[in-house]
């Protein structure tokens, strides 16, 4: 075997290990996947809705929040108009005294949340992006986790509002898969992000540790890393669904993902002390190293697959130039099948298994007729895009020499 084959074998073993690990965690906690702790007592919650030029969607978000199934006197909504230049403020004012409004200059999401946090006097605080909204039972499924004093955050299940074009279809399966993964990560105690749409926090933790960080691209990831480093737990429910508005163009998706991945790198660097730190538990010793290998692996695979495709193209052109035509042979003989084909067959089976578990965790049906393109693009285009976004992120970090602004 040549070196590149050995490297592939290593990558295959990492993939199998990851799949097996998540499979074991899933199987060992089968009874917890769809079950949340009962609500021991009504906990007061403040829901923060930062909005910047969100006139198209903020009205529906606020209305949905007003409609959730939770005692009216146990939750309140603070909407923060972050210097919007459109009709956002007027729409918010339309809700009268049902919500509290903070109108301020544009200073960004994290600062807006921190301004609002100063007014919060409830035990829990939730964040909700203005372009997202929850199901009615959103809070009921989440607050029970806070009976455990060690829990400082709970994440919901995020789903896309629509999957109409190709970019949205690719993300649809990814979000469903993330519902499964996030639950597994919570059970394995390695959640490293509290998504902006719908995460619930213990207010004291946020106030004591400085609220949301303003010096990162992903304040929701920073707060999760902080919680983990402060020896707090982050739980997850697959039953509280929050619907979010996905990027609909490749350009917007690219911007979103490079921001997220850059935020991951920033927080990885900021909390590098957790790396291989036994005190940080599974996150530090197993997950962060495994994630680093995965990122390297996907970037390498992207590069190598691209190289091979170019090489194949070059060889095809060369053959055409040699012969004056390109001989096409679509037959597959026994002699052409080799070890790597067996691995690929195995990964296809594992991938299908993962999707089935994800759909179950997300309470979705397979619906092949409607969603075949969602699944197909997830297995074909998505890994390539994922790796490409990481490559772009590293280039951007190198270009800006690690500065936050870009």
């Amino acid at each position, binding site marked *: *075997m040549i070196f590149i*084959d050995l490297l592939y074998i290593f990558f*295959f*073993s990492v993939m*199998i*290990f990851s799949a*097996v*690990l998540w499979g*074991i*965690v899933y199987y*060992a906690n089968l009874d917890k996947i769809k079950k949340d702790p009962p609500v021991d007592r009504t906990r007061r919650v403040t829901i923060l809705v930062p909005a910047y030029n969100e006139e198209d969607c903020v009205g529906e978000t606020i209305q949905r929040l007003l409609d959730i199934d939770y005692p009216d006197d146990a939750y309140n909504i603070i909407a923060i108009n972050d210097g919007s230049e459109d009709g956002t403020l007027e729409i918010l004012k339309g809700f009268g005294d049902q919500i509290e409004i903070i109108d301020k200059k544009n200073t960004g999401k994290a600062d807006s949340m921190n301004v609002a946090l100063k007014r919060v006097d409830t035990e829990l605080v939730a964040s909700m992006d203005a372009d997202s909204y929850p199901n009615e039972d959103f809070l009921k499924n989440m607050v029970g986790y806070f009976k455990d004093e*060690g829990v400082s955050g709970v994440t919901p299940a995020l789903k896309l509002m629509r999957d109409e074009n190709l970019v949205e279809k690719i993300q649809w399966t990814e979000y469903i898969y993330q519902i499964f993964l996030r639950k597994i990560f919570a059970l*394995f*105690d390695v959640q490293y992000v509290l998504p902006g749409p719908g995460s619930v926090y213990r207010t004291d933790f946020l106030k004591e540790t400085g609220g949301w960080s303003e010096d990162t691209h992903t304040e929701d990831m920073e707060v999760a890393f902080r919680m983990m480093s*402060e*020896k*707090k*737990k982050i739980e997850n429910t697959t039953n509280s669904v929050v619907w979010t508005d996905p990027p609909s163009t490749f350009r917007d998706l690219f911007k979103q993902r490079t921001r997220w991945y850059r935020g991951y790198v920033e927080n990885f660097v900021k909390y590098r002390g957790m790396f291989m730190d*036994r*005190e*940080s*538990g*599974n996150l530090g*010793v*197993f997950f962060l190293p495994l994630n680093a290998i995965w990122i390297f692996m996907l970037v390498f695979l992207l590069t190598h697959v691209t190289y091979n495709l170019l090489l194949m193209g070059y060889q095809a052109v*060369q*053959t055409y130039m*040699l*012969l*004056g*035509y390109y*001989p096409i042979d679509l037959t597959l*003989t*026994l*002699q*052409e*099948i*080799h*070890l*790597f084909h*067996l*691995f690929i067959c*195995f990964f296809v089976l594992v991938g299908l298994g993962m999707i089935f578990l994800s759909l179950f965790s997300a309470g979705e049906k397979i619906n092949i007729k409607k969603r075949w393109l969602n699944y197909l693009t997830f297995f074909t285009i998505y890994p390539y895009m994922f790796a490409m976004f990481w490559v772009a992120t590293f280039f951007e970090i190198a270009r800006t020499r690690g500065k936050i602004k870009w």
Partner: protein
Amino acid sequence: MVERNLDIGTVILAVTLTVVIMGGIFLMGWRLSEEKVSDLERDVVSFEVERRSQEISRQIAENLPEKNCEALEFAVEQTIIDTQNLADRVTEYEDSYKLQNDNFRELKKEYTNVLLEYWLLTEKVDDMCNSSTVRMLYFYSGQNVCPTCEDQGTIITHYRKKYNENLLVFPLDMRLDMRHLNILRETYKIEDYPVVVINGDTYRGFMDIEEMGEVLGKYMNEEPLNGTSEMVEK
């Protein structure tokens, strides 16, 4: 504050299962490799039986009061197709090579033996019956020693398919350490690759599609070709 424990048991179980799964896939890969080599072995044995039958046919024909060249040539032509198919399968195995299989190396030597025996047989039949079949010995080596051998192989395959049973190609991998290959190397004074020997005439160095078309055209009793594959076909 929560006390964070490592789920070492879970990770060890995952590592164990990973090793078992990897082992299982490698075992299947090894079995697959064995099956592929066995499949080639069966072909080589079958080819060897065929060659011996022809050798016997040749001896019989030689000793008969009247030579039956037509029947002998027909038998040889039937085997040509088998030879080319076997060569294709050996190439496919080499292209998909991932796991070391010592049996294959031995099998390839055996295949080379049978191939050369068959070449000798066709030489004798040609002497005896003045056959019209064109015989090509193609000497090649690995990419490091011979960067153009792959392209040369592509061009030879092209003509082999064009001429079917009229062109008999014997590809010889000179990386194999075999005594008779060394004899041929010395006989034809081979120092660089690729080299082709067509009906005893030696051509050194890479030949593009036009050059090879022209050369083969002479042996096929055709007008010299001007190079395009369409013209070879005529």
